[in-house]
């Protein structure tokens, strides 16, 4: 349950046995060809995998450096990589005989993915969502309800993702006998970071093969955005053994020199949150600091423990990207390639574009375009109105 110094299982005693059961069930499942087959069947026939990789030729030409390829997780059913993991975990829940699932959500993407698979598997579904996010993400709340899920507004703390996660854990503690908790990122107590990673590694496995088929080599660099970090781990997993430079992009919000950011690795310190030891945004007394990012999906005070480990060993470099840099990248991709990226993914794009400029034309960057930006159009409109561009 550890990634170097990080990870672990820091939870109330009540959850220790349920977590051990999940760990055991997952281990058995991953060795069960029928389980694997059903998982891949759903990825293909339900979510539409494999997702393609798209050569961003116009941006490449414009920047004049490395070739930029996009792994198109935005083309998944429900619009982001989140569904890969939700499918995997709901199958695990079914295998364990659970009939009810719970999930936490910030902007609503993981909530929608969970509500989706719960509908598909006829399971009761409760999604915990900060009251503030319920208000801001009205449309996603309605989507979840349409899918038959119950959205539970969380009024504790700052009423956002961190608090929704707290509340989901509290609910799970009380109902772990018949509920499965579908965690949405590579965070939480062991075995969750491992489970989510394994259900997301399809991103990197596919992309590695696709890229090789096109270019006859591996990419020079691979870039992905990091909030909790599930799309990034899913992408990186396939390239960890290779001589490929891996770069994670975290949210610098208004700037890492300000108080308004979510740059957990750049500015965080070691601590325990939501069951694992990792880097956190916290004060000297260990109180968690509410992060900020224009991207609701990166707006998390912690980071997956494996990322903390990969950062501390130096295998993956983590860079931070401000709101404005992300928006510039989003706009460039929209204008040049006709692809509207999620603001989360735009952080990865921004990092990739900066690198590409300084690289040679025979080099290449593979970027994980983790989700589509349709969900962000409201946020973007508000932003452009604010800065007087619309």
């Amino acid at each position, binding site marked *: 349950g550890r990634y170097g110094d990080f990870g672990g299982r820091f939870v109330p005693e009540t959850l220790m046995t*349920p977590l051990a059961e999940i760990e055991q069930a997952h281990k058995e499942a991953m060795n069960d060809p029928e389980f694997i087959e059903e998982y891949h069947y759903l990825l293909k026939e339900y979510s539409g995998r494999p997702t393609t990789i798209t050569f961003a030729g116009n941006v490449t030409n414009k920047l004049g450096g490395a070739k930029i390829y996009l792994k198109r997780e935005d083309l998944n059913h429900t619009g982001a990589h989140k569904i890969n993991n939700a499918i995997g975990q709901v199958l695990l829940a079914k295998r364990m005989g659970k009939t009810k699932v719970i999930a936490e959500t910030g902007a609503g993407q993981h909530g929608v993915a969970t509500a989706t698979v719960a509908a598909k598997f006829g399971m009761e579904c409760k999604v915990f969502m900060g009251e503030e996010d319920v208000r801001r993400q009205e449309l996603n709340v309605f989507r979840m309800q349409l899918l038959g899920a119950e959205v539970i507004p969380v009024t504790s703390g700052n009423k956002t993702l961190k608090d929704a996660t707290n509340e989901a854990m509290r609910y799970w503690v009380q109902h772990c006998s018949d509920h499965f908790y579908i965690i949405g990122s590579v965070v939480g107590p062991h075995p969750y970071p491992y489970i989510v990673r394994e259900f997301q590694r399809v991103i990197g496995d596919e992309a590695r093969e696709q890229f090789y088929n096109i270019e006859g080599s591996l990419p020079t660099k691979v870039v992905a955005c990091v909030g909790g970090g599930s799309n990034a781990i899913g992408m990186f997993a396939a390239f960890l053994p290779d001589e490929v430079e891996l770069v994670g992009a975290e949210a610098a919000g208004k700037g890492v020199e300000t108080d308004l950011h979510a740059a957990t690795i750049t500015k965080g310190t070691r601590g325990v949150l939501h*069951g694992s030891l990792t880097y956190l945004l916290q004060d000297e*007394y260990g109180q968690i600091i509410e992060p900020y990012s224009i991207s609701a999906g990166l707006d998390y005070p912690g980071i997956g423990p494996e990322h903390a480990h990969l950062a501390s060993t130096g295998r993956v470099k983590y860079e931070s990207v401000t709101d404005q840099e992300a928006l510039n990248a989003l706009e460039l991709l929209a204008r040049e390639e006709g692809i509207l990226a999620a603001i989360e993914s735009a952080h990865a794009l921004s990092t990739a574009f900066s690198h590409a400029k300084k690289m040679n034309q025979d080099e290449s960057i593979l970027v994980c375009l983790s989700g589509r930006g349709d969900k962000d159009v409201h946020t973007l409109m508000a932003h452009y109105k604010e800065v007087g561009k619309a």
Partner: protein
Amino acid sequence: MTLFKQSVNSQLFIPFITAGDPHSDVTVDLAIALQDAGASAIELGIPYSDPVADGPVIQKASSRALKNGMNIIEAMKLVPKMRKKGLNIPIILFTYYNPVLQLNQESFFALLRENTIDGLLIPDIPFEESEELRQKCKEQSINFISLVAPTSSSRIKMIAEAAEGFIYCVSSLGVTGVRKNFDESITSFLKEVKSYSSVPVVVGFGVSSREQVELLSNICDGVVVGSALVREIERLQTTLMDKEGRQQAIEDFQQFAKTFVLVNEMK
């Protein structure tokens, strides 16, 4: 040092209060009041931003205390003030793991010692992750309190055998909070714990009435009462903050606390 004798002839009453709720001075007075009401020990809660093991009542107390600027160091410093006012029962520091982790381990234990703290209870550090801390506590004569839950099943033996001070049994699945009923299965759960434990077996999470305490007295060695008391503090908070009304409010609180103390106690 162990908090309590291996076998207690009276029912233990271990109240929980949050340091700094509604104010650090009041916390000191409340601790004295609890001792006077018959508390066997006090759990002094460190307010935390993300208290995942707590229900809404203690969450709100945490928020209030954090707004008052309370932190783990200031909280510990309240204990000598309590001692000065006559507190002689054990104090158990109840804190989530992260605030502890931010302190250098040496200085954390130095603070525990300096501030005459007797026990340590960390709700989000399970047995397997606590090895080092338990060892360190043993060296420093601090009782590291272990929790055990109905879901612990095969883990009960391991946890109970290693328990020090007392063993804290989670009454039913869940987080802290006021509950009307207990699960039927609690009797067999507590019996199993007792069979392995060499320290008092105490029940917590959801103990909120005298009836419950009486009911539990047959099957365990005592109770932890948290939310019920914290809710009373919340109710009294305005008066507690008022110089003129405080004394009366403290007395009211003490009266309320007494309802959890069995009359035949022989402490």
